[in-house]
């Protein structure tokens, strides 16, 4: 081998969706990328793969010239077999078109060793071409690599069910599904906006993005609550900021700094609780008081479990314990391995309303499980449903029949919104 | 050398020889005993080493078995039997296990002989362990050459297999066989152990190790090591580290071989010769002291003994000497009844007999001398008497018969008478002269001058007898002697006269002077008719003469003069060849 003879040629850069641009532009391509993933991942990929394969074939042919070449393709990338076959087909087709015939090594004048590889951004395909004895050349093409979003889990457990709603790279604080005459709408609350998607052909498409303007520094573990309202579309609560949507189209949102307590349920007359503006928990001050309890422990989340004559409140306290407030007593449950997020879910089974609880433990996976609290002691009511990452938000939906769970996938770091519903099992 | 000295010497020699023979025999016995003891000690040390080697081998086996029984090794064995895809994860296991068991070497080797983990060369995993095929099955410890990053070394190894499933996992562990190992050996005092690691094709002095690393003076051990390297057999040799034999060491070289009989090392068990040599020296010095004292005592004893033995002999000798000089009264006083006593009695009897004999002889000689003197006197006197008688008778007859002629006859007769009377007077004068020989008046005298003066006296006479040739051989540097030159002149003149008389027909007269020892010698030689031995014996007897005329006093006078000067005179004569008189005069 004479390394000095090694030469290389490259493709023209295949346009990427990324450029060094403003944040707005970046969000734009992210949205496009989302569409690419959610809507048409296979078709777009196949076309790009074929184009790149042809480019590579063209370059190989330019080096070898017409004749018989031994072609070997090795896949070291995340491309699946189908894609590799597409690449192979396209590559061989283009080679034939350029007068290069693939043959066995002993029948060919040269060889082309194609390696399908990738880096974190793009696929990189390299062909090492050996013609004659010592001449070894390398040609390369690259094409952007789609960001793999988490595939929605499809399995539905018998008792608890999860329905994948949406995934995006930015943190989702809360989500809500609205059935409207014009079709379903999906509202996603994140740090900067409320995004409204409408469903078209079974897929969510962005309809509008309502920016949330706030002056305060948002806490690191940002939490937000999106509550649907009857007189207007929604209220959005963020630490120190409350936003209200316009009552009439076009949709708009108005935000103002406020330390008003957040409603703990969607009911208008619900108990409200103060949220620390620079932190991620409720202070424990209730308004109105829960029975006689005006100040409970600081807590991350609360769930209202209706009982005959009273409401049992379950609070996931900051210290890791679970408090059960019935307006008279504050019972602390310590020996449970529950996460910080809990919500009520209505199932008509058992006590009628179950406590939906996230699990604490390994951040690479998380699960939700329903518990009944018949006599103030939690009793497991469902098998857990698993998620591929920690649950970062869990809120009851406005009607309390379902819950919204936001999961941060461990493998991609993307945020996924799920609707959790409960059905009676056996 | 006196008899006593001889006896003493004989005794001393005998004692010395006895001591020497005993010493040599003791030395030889001691040496062979010591050598045997030394050899036995070396053999004992070698045997001890072998047993130590065996023990250490067993220890290594025990440690390797302990390693094999560890959970770690069992786990690894299980994993490789389960087809663990990546066996390289065990790299540091061997070192941990080796540390636990205090092993210098430890390797975990799979059934194909590939190192999974090596304590001594961690980087060597994945490489084959060449010793494995040969070492499998060896029950005890064995020697092995071990490659290390810093070079090769020797080790005492053992191999065991962990068998979980079909594929055994071999555990091959060992201890380093180097100076550290030597330092742990339990060896007797006075011995030391050196190890030659036979790692190179050629002799490498750095591979010879003692307790402190490469051994000093390795080159001196080269022949011994080479011998073992070539023969593969045990060998012995004594190495002299310095001219002092106490610094020598006796080495017993033991070959150390690996499983396939490859010579991997040579163990040299050295025993210092110092104790042996010092013991030998002590024995020798004691022996010398004892022997020397013995010889001294023996000499003293022999001196006493010789004195005791030789005293009567010496008395006898003294008596004999006295007898020899004429003291026949000498007696030997010995109170002994042994042979010496008898000898002394015999001697005493002999002297008594001698005295009697001498008396008798003296008496006979005196009679004979008187007879001779009487005969000579009668002869001398008879000769003139006869003419006197004839003349007187002629005068008587002439007076009677022819008185005319008487006067004439008277005149003639008286002249004859006077002549003969003169002759008689001369004869009587000679005898008288001999009787009254004067005592020498000594003064420093040059003998040569006396000789010259004699020759001058005889010059005319010799000139007349032209047939006599005179030779003088006078030593020019002849020292002066204390002598009476007149007496010497008479004595020499007598000798010259005798010589002339001895050569009537002519011949050669030689006078020779020379210094002989502390004396001056004069010899007078003639080439005359010579003398018989009997004549020689009687030559100096007074009044003895061989001549037809002469008194026979000439040589007696010569002997008298010489004797008076403290000298001596001798004569040598060969019949018909000549006679030489030799006169020695002290200075």
């Amino acid at each position, binding site marked *: 081998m004479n*390394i000095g003879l090694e030469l*290389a040629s*490259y493709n023209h*850069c295949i346009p990427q969706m990324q450029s*060094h*641009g*403003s*944040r*707005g532009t970046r969000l734009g391509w992210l949205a496009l990328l989302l569409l690419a993933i959610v809507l048409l991942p296979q078709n777009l990929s196949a076309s790009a793969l074929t184009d790149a394969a042809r480019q590579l074939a063209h370059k190989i042919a330019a080096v070898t010239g017409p004749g018989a070449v031994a072609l070997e393709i090795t896949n070291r990338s995340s491309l699946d077999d189908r894609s590799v076959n597409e690449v192979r087909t396209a590559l061989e087709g283009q080679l034939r078109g350029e007068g290069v015939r693939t043959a066995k090594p002993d029948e060919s004048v040269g060889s082309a060793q194609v*390696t399908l*590889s990738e*880096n*974190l*951004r*793009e*696929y*990189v395909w*390299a062909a090492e071409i050996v013609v004659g004895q010592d001449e070894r050349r*390398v040609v*390369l093409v*690259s094409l952007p690599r789609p960001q793999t979003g988490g595939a929605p889990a499809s399995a539905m457990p018998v008792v608890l069910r999860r329905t994948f709603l949406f995934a995006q790279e930015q943190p989702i604080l809360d989500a809500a599904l609205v059935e409207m005459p014009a079709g379903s709408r999906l509202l996603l609350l994140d740090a900067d906006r409320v995004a409204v998607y409408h469903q078209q052909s079974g897929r969510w498409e962005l309809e509008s993005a309502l920016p949330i303007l706030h002056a305060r*520094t948002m*806490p*690191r*573990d940002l939490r937000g609550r999106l509550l649907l309202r009857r007189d207007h579309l929604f209220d959005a609560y963020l630490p120190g900021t409350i936003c209200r949507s316009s009552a009439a189209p076009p949709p708009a949102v108005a935000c103002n700094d406020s330390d008003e307590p957040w409603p703990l349920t969607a009911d208008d007359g619900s108990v409200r609780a103060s949220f620390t503006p620079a*932190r*991620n928990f409720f202070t424990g001050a209730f308004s109105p008081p829960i029975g006689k309890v005006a100040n409970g422990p600081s807590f*991350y*989340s609360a769930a209202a479990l209706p009982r005959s004559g009273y409401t049992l409140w379950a609070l996931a*306290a*900051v*210290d*890791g*314990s679970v408090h059960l407030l019935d307006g008279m007593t504050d019972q602390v449950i310590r*020996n*449970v*391995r*529950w*996460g*910080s*997020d809990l919500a009520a879910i209505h199932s008509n089974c058992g006590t009628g309303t179950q406590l939906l609880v*996230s699990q*604490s433990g*390994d*951040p*690479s996976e*998380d699960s939700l499980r329903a518990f009944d609290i018949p006599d103030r002691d939690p009793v497991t009511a469902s098998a857990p449903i698993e998620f591929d990452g920690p649950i970062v938000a869990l809120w009851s939906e406005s009607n309390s029949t379902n819950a919204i769970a936001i999961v941060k996938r461990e493998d991609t*770091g993307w945020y996924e919104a799920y609707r959790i519903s409960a059905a009676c099992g056996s | 050398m006196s008899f006593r000295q001889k006896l003493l010497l004989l005794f001393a020699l005998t004692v010395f020889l006895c001591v020497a023979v005993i010493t040599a025999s003791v030395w030889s016995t001691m040496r062979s005993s010591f050598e045997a003891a030394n050899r036995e000690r070396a053999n004992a040390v070698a045997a001890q080493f072998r047993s130590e080697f065996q023990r250490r081998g067993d220890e290594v086996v025990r440690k390797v078995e302990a390693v094999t029984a560890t959970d770690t090794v069992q786990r690894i064995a299980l994993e490789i039997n389960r087809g663990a895809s*990546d066996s*390289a*994860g065990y*790299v*540091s296991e061997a070192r941990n296990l080796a540390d636990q068991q205090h092993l210098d070497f430890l390797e975990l080797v799979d059934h194909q002989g590939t190192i999974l983990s090596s304590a001594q*060369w*961690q*980087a*060597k*995993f*994945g490489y084959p362990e060449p010793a494995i095929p040969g070492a499998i099955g060896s029950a005890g410890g064995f020697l092995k050459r071990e490659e290390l*990053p810093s070079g090769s070394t020797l080790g005492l190894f053992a191999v065991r297999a962990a068998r979980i499933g079909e594929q055994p996992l071999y555990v091959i562990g060992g201890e380093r066989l180097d100076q550290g190992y030597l330092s742990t050996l339990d060896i007797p005092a006075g011995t030391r152990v050196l190890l030659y690691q036979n790692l190179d094709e050629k002799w490498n002095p750095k591979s010879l190790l003692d307790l402190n690393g490469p051994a000093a003076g390795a080159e001196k051990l080269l022949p011994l090591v080479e011998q073992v390297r070539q023969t593969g057999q045990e060998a012995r040799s004594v190495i002299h580290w310095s001219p002092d034999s106490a610094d020598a060491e006796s080495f017993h070289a033991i070959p150390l071989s690996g499983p396939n009989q490859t010579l991997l090392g040579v163990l040299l068990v050295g025993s210092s010769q110092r104790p042996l040599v010092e013991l030998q020296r002590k024995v020798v010095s004691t022996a010398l002291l004892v022997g020397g004292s013995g010889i001294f005592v023996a000499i003293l004893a022999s001196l006493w003994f010789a004195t005791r033995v030789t005293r009567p002999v010496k008395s006898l000798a003294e008596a004999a000497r006295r007898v020899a000089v004429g003291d026949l009264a000498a007696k030997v006083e010995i109170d002994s009844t042994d042979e010496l006593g008898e000898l002394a009695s015999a001697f005493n009897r002999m002297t008594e007999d001698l005295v009697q004999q001498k008396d008798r002889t003296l008496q006979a000689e005196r009679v004979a001398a008187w007879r001779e003197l009487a005969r000579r006197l009668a002869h001398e006197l008879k000769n003139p008497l006869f003419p006197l008688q004839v003349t007187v008778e002629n005068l008587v007859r002439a007076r009677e018969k022819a008185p005319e002629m008487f006067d004439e006859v008277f005149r003639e007769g008286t002249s004859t008478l006077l002549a003969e009377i003169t002759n008689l007077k001369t004869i009587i004068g000679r005898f008288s002269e001999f009787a009254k020989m004067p005592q020498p008046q000594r003064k420093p005298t040059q003998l040569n001058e006396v000789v010259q003066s004699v020759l001058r006296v005889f010059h005319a006479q010799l000139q007349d007898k032209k047939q006599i040739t005179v030779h003088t051989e006078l030593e020019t540097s002849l020292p002066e002697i204390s002598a009476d030159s007149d007496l010497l002149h008479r004595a020499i003149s007598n000798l010259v006269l005798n010589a002339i008389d001895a050569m009537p027909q002519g011949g050669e007269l030689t006078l020779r002077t020379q210094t002989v020892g502390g004396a001056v010698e004069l010899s007078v030689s003639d080439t005359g008719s010579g003398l018989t031995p009997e004549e020689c014996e009687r030559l100096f007897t007074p009044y003895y003469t061989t001549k037809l005329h002469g008194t026979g006093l000439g040589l007696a006078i010569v002997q008298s003069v010489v004797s008076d000067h403290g000298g001596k005179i001798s004569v040598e004569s060969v019949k018909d060849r000549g006679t030489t008189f030799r006169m020695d005069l002290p200075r």
Partner: protein
Amino acid sequence: MRRIVFLLLAAASLLGTAPGATRPRYGGTLRVMMQAAPNTLEIPAAGTPSDYWNLARILAMVTDTLVTLDAAGHIEPGLATTWQSEMNGKRWQFTLRHGVRFHDGSSASAAVIAKILGDLHPDWGVHASADTLTIETDSISPSLPAELALPRNAILRRNSDGIPIGTGPFRVAEFQPGRHLKLAASEDRWAGRPFVDVVEIDLGRALRDQAIALELNKVDVIEASPQSGTNSARIGTSLQVELMALVFPPNTRAQDARLRDALALTINRKPIQSGLLRGAGEPTAAILPNWMSGYNAVFPVQANVQRARAVLADSRQPALTLNYDPRDPQAQLIADRIALNAREAGITVQVSLSGSPDVSLVRIVLPSSDPATSLREAAQALGLNAPILRSSSVDDLYPAERALLDGHSVIPLFHLPLASAVSARVHNWNPERGGGWNLADVWLEAP
């Protein structure tokens, strides 16, 4: 080390059963241990990779950069929220975040940042106007944002004691040089106050000590030895951000390129990776890791002793002295193994720390997820001429990297990741794949 990892995992699994909230909790003191024992809080010029990462992590806690890079090399906002290039990459304009203040309360205005960057890079033209910062360079600088994202370009001022004052999530509360560093949460951090109140960093602690301390629950975050199969919630491994390579100094006795080529051909990297690096890292013959470049397949890593012998062709070659960084615990074994491999082709390599080396086993940092920036930094660290790159595309990268490797004055061996481990009470442990620790997002379980 393997045993320690097992212990760590066991400890982690035991501790993981403790009940606790999953929602981030504010408060608490995060206890950290590091190998580095810096006397000043600056990136060391001649430190080990560990020193680099430790200081980079400290600076990342205290300071911000204008922009940051994610693992894919994408630019993320930092103190600048938007950016654009003009004049073909010779001029870059950054819009700065409003209202950011240094820990001493002073404003991190465009003018201040321009002054800081201008002082760091006198050859740049740095101009500030209102909320905009403009940087002009003489040559085209497509990787300028990546350069700005490097820890050395952190926006910071130093007080009279040399303590950095930045805009990061933590401020330096106390610094005992070489021993201890205490960071306190910055309350008005623009990205939100960190969850923990205080970060206590014990400096100069050996890896083994760190592991034991973690086992004894005396520390929350430690460095760990990367090894395969140990990724878990408690032990995180980054992408490969270090390069281990053999470097021939200019005065090497291996002047014959055939010898260097042959040596490269003898090295069997796979056993070293699986045995000595405990499966961590990736054998390589390229400077940039595949996750950056994507074309490493064209740099073959297979050993070929026969070819090495053929290359040498019975020529007489000198014995080579190989040295290594004694501060690197694995380096000696790897050097030994390389010497062992070289023997097979008849090349004598002696591993020694004394004398002038003919070849050195080095470990360098690939500091940026931007391949062009990392290639440039690596070339500099390896003593090669820095390549001139128009972009980070493979079109530019491949020939540049190939040119650096021609002549075998560098033999890349492995790309290595970093690993860290955390205690069970640490939550939201999401170390950056590029090696950063991101401790601002970490929160601690309630005691």
